[in-house]
């Protein structure tokens, strides 16, 4: 139970994939202009993260590691994730058209998103993640952290619209500065997971 809470807190707050680890900056800056597209994108990313972990974790642990082929993990994970996402898109289009219309446009965008690859690769360097269910939980936490970061930043960008910004900083520069400050604010959570259970 302790491990569950530690993983959730570290995945969502302390080691947030976007704001602490700087993965997935492209969708973070690109899709966070409106709240509904931000939420749609985050849900799609969470789904792909969990699905990718579902396939890549056993692949690494039971196929690559025993044969000491762990150096293949990057290329194989990319291959698997890309193939999986394409498959999911085709299945969605055929069986759940409304969901495809809502999330479908984001799926090709996150096929080779570094945040998704990062989640699958970083399971194995995370001391807290020792079993398969915990890895799935970590992936879910990563996705929820992504959602949190996107929603917060969508709000920040909404506020920026009504601000008086100097001409030189309008557009991308002020967005990047705002992102940096948001990331800085998440530093406040440092040490939360470690200190929680003594």
């Amino acid at each position, binding site marked *: 139970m302790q491990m569950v809470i530690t993983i959730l807190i570290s995945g969502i707050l302390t080691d947030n994939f976007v704001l602490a680890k700087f993965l997935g900056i492209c969708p973070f800056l690109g899709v966070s202009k409106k709240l509904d597209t931000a939420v749609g994108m985050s849900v799609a990313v969470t789904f792909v993260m969990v699905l990718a972990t579902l396939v890549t974790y056993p692949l690494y642990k039971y196929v690559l590691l025993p044969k000491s*082929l762990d150096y293949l993990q990057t290329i194989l994970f990319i291959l698997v994730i890309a193939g999986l996402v394409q498959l999911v898109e085709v299945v969605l289009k055929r069986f759940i058209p409304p969901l495809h219309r809502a999330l479908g446009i984001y799926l090709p965008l996150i096929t080779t998103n570094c945040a998704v690859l990062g989640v699958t690769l970083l399971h194995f360097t995370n001391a807290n993640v020792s079993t398969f269910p915990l890895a799935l939980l970590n992936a879910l936490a990563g996705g929820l952290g992504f959602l949190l970061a996107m929603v917060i930043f969508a709000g920040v960008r909404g506020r920026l619209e009504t601000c008086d910004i100097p001409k030189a900083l309008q557009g991308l520069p002020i967005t990047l500065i705002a992102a940096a400050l948001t990331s800085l604010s998440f530093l406040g959570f440092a040490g939360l997971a470690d200190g929680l259970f003594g």
Partner: protein
Amino acid sequence: MISILIPVCIVSGVGAVFGVILSVAAVLLEVPVDKKQEAIREALPGANCGACGYPGCDGYAEALAQGSVTAMLCAPGGQAVRTKLAEILDLDVGSFKQVSAFVQCAGSYYNTSNKMRYVGESSCAYANQIFAGPWSCPYGCLGYGDCMAVCEYDAIQVMDGVAVVDAEKCVACAKCVAACPKSIIAIAPTDHTARMACSSKDRGAQVKQLCTAGCIGCTKCVKSCPEGAIHMVGALARVDYEKCTGCGTCTQSCPQNCFEIS
């Protein structure tokens, strides 16, 4: 040798497996798509700008294929896309109408008068808050140019106190439609169509006092139109663009000269 062969086989194996799965899925789980809709979608620019009012080029292609819209709403497409679409939809290019914005008001300095002296921010949105603006007609164009400010194509100008759209430059992006606080700008077909330049909900003598070019609600246009394309909304005449053939009968029957044929 073996140590190189095994990883090569594993990676190629996984790639091949996924290739097979995806090919099979693409065939088995194929969603039947309307060939016409596909052809339409191919012809559209694919910018997904939303100027047509539909959710992206896919949305507009679907609406065109199903026949729920017969107007040329694609602004970035221009003449080239219009001809291609008319060909696919089997329509005469002339009847596949190009649209542009139109200001439904002819209340220039010559036609109206002031009801008060307005001293304030030179913006339609602000002036509209003070007793519906300083001009005599409460429904008409205020002329402070909020529409001009948002137009990125220089297509709308305020001339003699009323906004006028240059149809050649207009791409029907509808930004002016949203910017007008009186909501009197509408998107209408550009050629061979009658467009009605008044938005006054008042009738008869009251309108004549306020503006010399306003609709008095006499319904002469409704009775004279050979296609039955004009109907009254309260005391205001409105044209149904789907039925209008641009014959010009309304321009001759209207005593206030409210109609113009493009």
